[in-house]
Protein backbone atom coordinates (compact mmCIF):
# COMPACT_ATOMS: atom_id res chain seq x y z
CA UNK A 1 0.00 0.00 0.00
CA UNK A 2 2.98 2.29 0.45
CA UNK A 3 3.16 3.25 -3.21
CA UNK A 4 -0.57 4.07 -3.19
CA UNK A 5 0.05 6.46 -0.34
CA UNK A 6 2.86 8.08 -2.29
CA UNK A 7 0.58 8.33 -5.31
CA UNK A 8 -2.12 10.03 -3.24
CA UNK A 9 0.38 12.44 -1.70
CA UNK A 10 1.81 13.24 -5.16
CA UNK A 11 -1.68 13.87 -6.55
CA UNK A 12 -2.55 16.23 -3.67
CA UNK A 13 0.76 18.10 -4.04
CA UNK A 14 0.22 18.40 -7.81
CA UNK A 15 -3.30 19.76 -7.23
CA UNK A 16 -2.02 22.32 -4.72
CA UNK A 17 0.74 23.43 -7.12
CA UNK A 18 -1.73 23.78 -10.01
CA UNK A 19 -4.15 25.80 -7.86
CA UNK A 20 -1.33 27.96 -6.47
CA UNK A 21 -0.06 28.76 -9.96
CA UNK A 22 -3.62 29.39 -11.19
CA UNK A 23 -4.49 31.80 -8.40
CA UNK A 24 -1.24 33.72 -8.92
CA UNK A 25 -2.15 34.52 -12.53
CA UNK A 26 -3.74 37.81 -13.39
CA UNK A 27 -7.15 36.91 -14.88
CA UNK A 28 -6.84 39.90 -17.23
CA UNK A 29 -3.63 38.43 -18.64
CA UNK A 30 -5.39 36.49 -21.38
CA UNK A 31 -2.83 34.72 -23.49
CA UNK A 32 -3.51 34.00 -27.09
CA UNK A 33 -1.61 31.93 -29.55
CA UNK A 34 0.04 34.96 -31.12
CA UNK A 35 2.29 36.18 -28.30
CA UNK A 36 5.86 35.06 -28.90
CA UNK A 37 5.20 34.42 -32.58
CA UNK A 38 5.73 36.52 -35.72
CA UNK A 39 3.11 39.23 -35.96
CA UNK A 40 0.48 38.43 -38.62
CA UNK A 41 1.14 40.55 -41.68
CA UNK A 42 -1.35 43.20 -42.71
CA UNK A 43 -1.71 45.87 -45.33
CA UNK A 44 -4.69 48.06 -44.51
CA UNK A 45 -6.11 51.24 -45.97
CA UNK A 46 -5.70 54.43 -43.96
CA UNK A 47 -8.85 56.11 -42.72
CA UNK A 48 -7.68 59.47 -44.06
CA UNK A 49 -7.37 58.08 -47.57
CA UNK A 50 -3.62 58.49 -47.59
CA UNK A 51 -2.76 55.07 -48.97
CA UNK A 52 -2.15 51.90 -46.98
CA UNK A 53 -0.06 50.82 -44.03
CA UNK A 54 1.80 47.53 -44.39
CA UNK A 55 3.45 45.90 -41.40
CA UNK A 56 6.39 44.77 -43.53
CA UNK A 57 7.25 48.42 -44.22
CA UNK A 58 7.70 48.98 -40.49
CA UNK A 59 10.35 46.26 -40.13
CA UNK A 60 13.10 47.25 -37.69
CA UNK A 61 10.78 49.49 -35.69
CA UNK A 62 8.88 48.75 -32.52
CA UNK A 63 5.20 48.69 -33.51
CA UNK A 64 2.33 49.28 -31.14
CA UNK A 65 -0.84 47.91 -32.74
CA UNK A 66 -3.88 49.33 -30.99
CA UNK A 67 -7.39 48.05 -31.80
CA UNK A 68 -10.00 50.67 -30.94
CA UNK A 69 -13.41 52.04 -31.89
CA UNK A 70 -15.21 55.34 -31.47
CA UNK A 71 -18.08 53.64 -29.60
CA UNK A 72 -15.69 52.16 -27.02
CA UNK A 73 -15.54 54.23 -23.82
CA UNK A 74 -12.36 52.59 -22.45
CA UNK A 75 -10.70 53.49 -25.78
CA UNK A 76 -11.51 57.12 -25.12
CA UNK A 77 -10.11 56.71 -21.61
CA UNK A 78 -6.76 55.31 -22.84
CA UNK A 79 -6.36 57.72 -25.77
CA UNK A 80 -4.42 60.39 -23.80
CA UNK A 81 -1.96 57.65 -22.77
CA UNK A 82 -1.33 56.84 -26.43
CA UNK A 83 -0.96 60.54 -27.23
CA UNK A 84 1.70 61.00 -24.55
CA UNK A 85 3.61 57.91 -25.69
CA UNK A 86 3.43 59.04 -29.32
CA UNK A 87 4.88 62.45 -28.46
CA UNK A 88 7.64 60.87 -26.41
CA UNK A 89 8.67 57.99 -28.67
CA UNK A 90 7.71 58.87 -32.23
CA UNK A 91 11.29 59.85 -33.06
CA UNK A 92 12.78 56.83 -31.31
CA UNK A 93 11.91 54.12 -33.82
CA UNK A 94 8.49 53.49 -32.32
CA UNK A 95 5.29 53.51 -34.40
CA UNK A 96 1.71 53.33 -33.23
CA UNK A 97 -0.78 51.84 -35.68
CA UNK A 98 -4.41 52.33 -34.77
CA UNK A 99 -6.77 49.73 -36.21
CA UNK A 100 -10.42 50.73 -36.23
CA UNK A 101 -12.49 47.78 -35.04
CA UNK A 102 -16.12 47.18 -36.00
CA UNK A 103 -16.74 50.85 -36.64
CA UNK A 104 -17.31 53.09 -39.62
CA UNK A 105 -14.62 55.33 -41.05
CA UNK A 106 -16.46 58.61 -40.45
CA UNK A 107 -16.93 57.83 -36.74
CA UNK A 108 -13.28 56.78 -36.46
CA UNK A 109 -12.04 59.95 -38.11
CA UNK A 110 -14.30 62.09 -35.93
CA UNK A 111 -12.93 60.32 -32.83
CA UNK A 112 -9.36 61.19 -33.87
CA UNK A 113 -10.31 64.75 -34.82
CA UNK A 114 -11.83 65.37 -31.40
CA UNK A 115 -9.19 63.57 -29.29
CA UNK A 116 -6.08 64.04 -31.41
CA UNK A 117 -3.54 61.51 -32.62
CA UNK A 118 -1.50 61.70 -35.77
CA UNK A 119 -0.27 58.11 -35.92
CA UNK A 120 -1.41 56.03 -38.90
CA UNK A 121 -4.91 54.72 -38.39
CA UNK A 122 -6.40 52.08 -40.64
CA UNK A 123 -9.64 50.19 -41.21
CA UNK A 124 -9.95 46.43 -40.80
CA UNK A 125 -12.37 45.12 -43.42
CA UNK A 126 -14.31 42.15 -42.10
CA UNK A 127 -12.26 42.14 -38.90
CA UNK A 128 -9.71 39.84 -40.55
CA UNK A 129 -6.68 41.44 -38.90
CA UNK A 130 -8.35 41.36 -35.48
CA UNK A 131 -9.10 37.66 -35.94
CA UNK A 132 -5.52 36.97 -37.07
CA UNK A 133 -4.18 38.67 -33.92
CA UNK A 134 -6.69 36.90 -31.65
CA UNK A 135 -8.46 40.02 -30.41
CA UNK A 136 -11.00 39.37 -27.64
CA UNK A 137 -12.35 42.87 -27.12
CA UNK A 138 -11.25 46.44 -27.35
CA UNK A 139 -9.21 48.31 -26.48
CA UNK A 140 -6.55 45.70 -27.07
CA UNK A 141 -2.92 46.44 -27.83
CA UNK A 142 -0.10 44.30 -29.23
CA UNK A 143 3.58 45.11 -28.82
CA UNK A 144 5.69 44.01 -31.78
CA UNK A 145 9.46 44.03 -31.39
CA UNK A 146 12.00 45.11 -33.97
CA UNK A 147 12.36 41.44 -34.91
CA UNK A 148 8.69 41.28 -35.92
CA UNK A 149 7.75 39.03 -32.99
CA UNK A 150 4.78 39.89 -30.79
CA UNK A 151 6.43 40.51 -27.43
CA UNK A 152 3.23 41.07 -25.50
CA UNK A 153 -0.32 42.28 -25.49
CA UNK A 154 -2.59 44.22 -23.21
CA UNK A 155 -6.33 43.76 -22.91
CA UNK A 156 -8.24 46.81 -21.72
CA UNK A 157 -7.26 50.47 -21.43
CA UNK A 158 -3.54 51.19 -21.13
CA UNK A 159 -2.01 53.33 -18.44
CA UNK A 160 1.21 55.31 -18.75
CA UNK A 161 3.33 52.91 -16.70
CA UNK A 162 2.20 49.80 -18.60
CA UNK A 163 2.67 51.37 -22.02
CA UNK A 164 6.04 52.91 -21.16
CA UNK A 165 7.34 49.61 -19.77
CA UNK A 166 6.15 47.73 -22.86
CA UNK A 167 7.73 50.25 -25.24
CA UNK A 168 11.02 50.36 -23.33
CA UNK A 169 11.19 46.56 -23.57
CA UNK A 170 10.93 46.48 -27.36
CA UNK A 171 12.10 49.81 -28.77
CA UNK A 172 15.31 49.94 -30.77
CA UNK A 173 18.28 50.54 -28.54
CA UNK A 174 20.37 53.60 -29.29
CA UNK A 175 23.72 52.75 -30.98
CA UNK A 176 26.61 52.52 -28.51
Amino acid at each position, binding site marked *: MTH*WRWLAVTAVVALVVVLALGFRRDPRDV*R*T*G*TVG*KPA*PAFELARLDGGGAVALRELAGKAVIVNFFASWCLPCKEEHPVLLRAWERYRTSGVVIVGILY*QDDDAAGLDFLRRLGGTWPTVRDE*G*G*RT*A*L*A*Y*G*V*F*GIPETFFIGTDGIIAGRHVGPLDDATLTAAIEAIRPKAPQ
Partner: protein
Amino acid sequence: MSRLAIGCAFTVLALALAFAARPAPETATDRVDRIAAELRCPVCQGLSVRDSPSETARDMRDLVAQRVAEGRSDDAIRDEFRAAYGDWIVLRPPLLSPAGLVWLAPILLVAGGAALALRLARAPASAPAAPPDQDALAALRARVARDEEADA
Protein backbone atom coordinates in the same frame (compact mmCIF):
# COMPACT_ATOMS: atom_id res chain seq x y z
CA MET B 1 -43.02 -19.59 -53.10
CA SER B 2 -44.99 -17.27 -50.83
CA ARG B 3 -42.13 -17.34 -48.29
CA LEU B 4 -39.71 -16.33 -51.01
CA ALA B 5 -41.99 -13.48 -52.06
CA ILE B 6 -42.32 -12.24 -48.46
CA GLY B 7 -38.54 -12.47 -48.00
CA CYS B 8 -37.95 -10.50 -51.19
CA ALA B 9 -40.51 -7.89 -50.13
CA PHE B 10 -38.81 -7.42 -46.75
CA THR B 11 -35.40 -7.20 -48.38
CA VAL B 12 -36.63 -4.59 -50.85
CA LEU B 13 -38.30 -2.66 -48.00
CA ALA B 14 -35.12 -2.77 -45.89
CA LEU B 15 -33.02 -1.58 -48.83
CA ALA B 16 -35.50 1.20 -49.57
CA LEU B 17 -35.44 2.35 -45.94
CA ALA B 18 -31.64 2.25 -45.84
CA PHE B 19 -31.49 4.25 -49.07
CA ALA B 20 -34.00 6.81 -47.79
CA ALA B 21 -32.16 7.17 -44.47
CA ARG B 22 -28.69 7.55 -46.01
CA PRO B 23 -26.94 10.75 -44.91
CA ALA B 24 -27.28 13.53 -47.45
CA PRO B 25 -23.98 14.79 -48.86
CA GLU B 26 -22.73 17.78 -46.88
CA THR B 27 -23.10 21.10 -48.67
CA ALA B 28 -20.65 23.98 -48.25
CA THR B 29 -23.23 25.76 -46.05
CA ASP B 30 -23.56 22.65 -43.86
CA ARG B 31 -19.79 22.53 -43.52
CA VAL B 32 -19.58 26.19 -42.54
CA ASP B 33 -22.33 25.64 -39.94
CA ARG B 34 -20.62 22.54 -38.55
CA ILE B 35 -17.23 24.22 -38.22
CA ALA B 36 -18.81 27.39 -36.80
CA ALA B 37 -20.58 25.23 -34.20
CA GLU B 38 -17.19 23.89 -33.08
CA LEU B 39 -15.70 27.36 -32.54
CA ARG B 40 -16.20 29.47 -29.43
CA CYS B 41 -17.36 33.06 -29.83
CA PRO B 42 -14.58 35.09 -28.12
CA VAL B 43 -16.84 37.93 -26.99
CA CYS B 44 -19.73 35.77 -25.68
CA GLN B 45 -20.42 33.65 -22.64
CA GLY B 46 -20.34 30.01 -23.73
CA LEU B 47 -21.83 30.50 -27.19
CA SER B 48 -20.56 28.98 -30.37
CA VAL B 49 -19.79 31.09 -33.41
CA ARG B 50 -22.81 29.55 -35.13
CA ASP B 51 -25.20 30.48 -32.31
CA SER B 52 -23.90 33.95 -31.48
CA PRO B 53 -25.44 37.05 -33.04
CA SER B 54 -22.35 39.19 -32.28
CA GLU B 55 -20.41 41.00 -34.98
CA THR B 56 -17.23 39.14 -34.06
CA ALA B 57 -18.99 35.79 -34.55
CA ARG B 58 -20.30 37.04 -37.89
CA ASP B 59 -16.76 37.97 -38.95
CA MET B 60 -15.58 34.51 -37.91
CA ARG B 61 -18.40 32.79 -39.84
CA ASP B 62 -17.52 34.84 -42.92
CA LEU B 63 -13.88 33.81 -42.59
CA VAL B 64 -14.87 30.13 -42.23
CA ALA B 65 -17.07 30.44 -45.33
CA GLN B 66 -14.19 32.00 -47.27
CA ARG B 67 -11.79 29.25 -46.20
CA VAL B 68 -14.33 26.54 -47.14
CA ALA B 69 -14.75 28.18 -50.55
CA GLU B 70 -10.97 28.20 -50.95
CA GLY B 71 -10.97 24.43 -50.39
CA ARG B 72 -9.18 24.40 -47.03
CA SER B 73 -9.60 21.32 -44.86
CA ASP B 74 -11.53 21.40 -41.58
CA ASP B 75 -8.31 20.94 -39.62
CA ALA B 76 -6.58 23.79 -41.47
CA ILE B 77 -9.51 26.13 -40.72
CA ARG B 78 -9.59 25.17 -37.03
CA ASP B 79 -5.80 25.50 -36.83
CA GLU B 80 -5.97 29.04 -38.19
CA PHE B 81 -8.23 30.08 -35.30
CA ARG B 82 -6.19 28.09 -32.79
CA ALA B 83 -3.03 29.88 -33.96
CA ALA B 84 -4.66 33.19 -33.07
CA TYR B 85 -6.65 32.29 -29.95
CA GLY B 86 -5.09 29.08 -28.64
CA ASP B 87 -6.91 25.81 -27.97
CA TRP B 88 -9.51 27.79 -26.01
CA ILE B 89 -11.22 28.80 -29.24
CA VAL B 90 -12.39 25.28 -30.06
CA LEU B 91 -15.31 24.13 -27.94
CA ARG B 92 -13.91 20.57 -27.84
CA PRO B 93 -10.16 21.03 -27.46
CA PRO B 94 -7.82 18.12 -28.24
CA LEU B 95 -7.43 15.82 -25.25
CA LEU B 96 -3.66 16.12 -25.23
CA SER B 97 -3.52 19.85 -24.54
CA PRO B 98 -3.68 21.98 -21.38
CA ALA B 99 -7.35 22.70 -22.08
CA GLY B 100 -7.95 19.03 -22.85
CA LEU B 101 -6.75 18.11 -19.36
CA VAL B 102 -10.01 19.54 -18.06
CA TRP B 103 -11.79 16.73 -19.90
CA LEU B 104 -9.13 14.11 -19.30
CA ALA B 105 -8.73 14.66 -15.55
CA PRO B 106 -12.16 13.26 -14.49
CA ILE B 107 -11.62 10.17 -16.66
CA LEU B 108 -8.19 9.62 -15.11
CA LEU B 109 -9.61 10.14 -11.60
CA VAL B 110 -12.43 7.64 -12.16
CA ALA B 111 -10.02 5.10 -13.69
CA GLY B 112 -7.61 5.58 -10.77
CA GLY B 113 -10.44 5.18 -8.24
CA ALA B 114 -11.69 2.03 -9.97
CA ALA B 115 -8.17 0.56 -10.00
CA LEU B 116 -7.78 1.33 -6.30
CA ALA B 117 -11.19 -0.20 -5.45
CA LEU B 118 -10.36 -3.32 -7.48
CA ARG B 119 -7.04 -3.68 -5.75
CA LEU B 120 -8.59 -3.33 -2.32
CA ALA B 121 -11.32 -5.87 -3.18
CA ARG B 122 -8.76 -8.41 -4.36
CA ALA B 123 -6.38 -7.91 -1.48
CA PRO B 124 -6.36 -10.85 0.99
CA ALA B 125 -8.28 -10.25 4.20
CA SER B 126 -6.27 -9.25 7.19
CA ALA B 127 -4.21 -11.98 8.87
CA PRO B 128 -6.26 -15.18 9.53
CA ALA B 129 -7.56 -15.60 13.04
CA ALA B 130 -5.35 -17.65 15.33
CA PRO B 131 -6.75 -21.08 16.31
CA PRO B 132 -8.63 -20.90 19.63
CA ASP B 133 -6.87 -21.90 22.78
CA GLN B 134 -8.02 -25.51 23.49
CA ASP B 135 -8.03 -25.11 27.29
CA ALA B 136 -10.06 -21.92 27.12
CA LEU B 137 -12.46 -23.61 24.71
CA ALA B 138 -12.92 -26.60 27.02
CA ALA B 139 -13.52 -24.25 29.97
CA LEU B 140 -16.10 -22.33 27.97
CA ARG B 141 -17.92 -25.52 26.95
CA ALA B 142 -17.95 -26.70 30.53
CA ARG B 143 -19.40 -23.39 31.67
CA VAL B 144 -22.12 -23.47 29.00
CA ALA B 145 -22.98 -27.03 30.01
CA ARG B 146 -23.23 -25.96 33.68
CA ASP B 147 -25.47 -23.05 32.77
CA GLU B 148 -27.75 -25.33 30.74
CA GLU B 149 -27.99 -27.80 33.62
CA ALA B 150 -28.82 -24.98 35.99
CA ASP B 151 -31.54 -23.72 33.65
CA ALA B 152 -33.04 -27.20 33.17
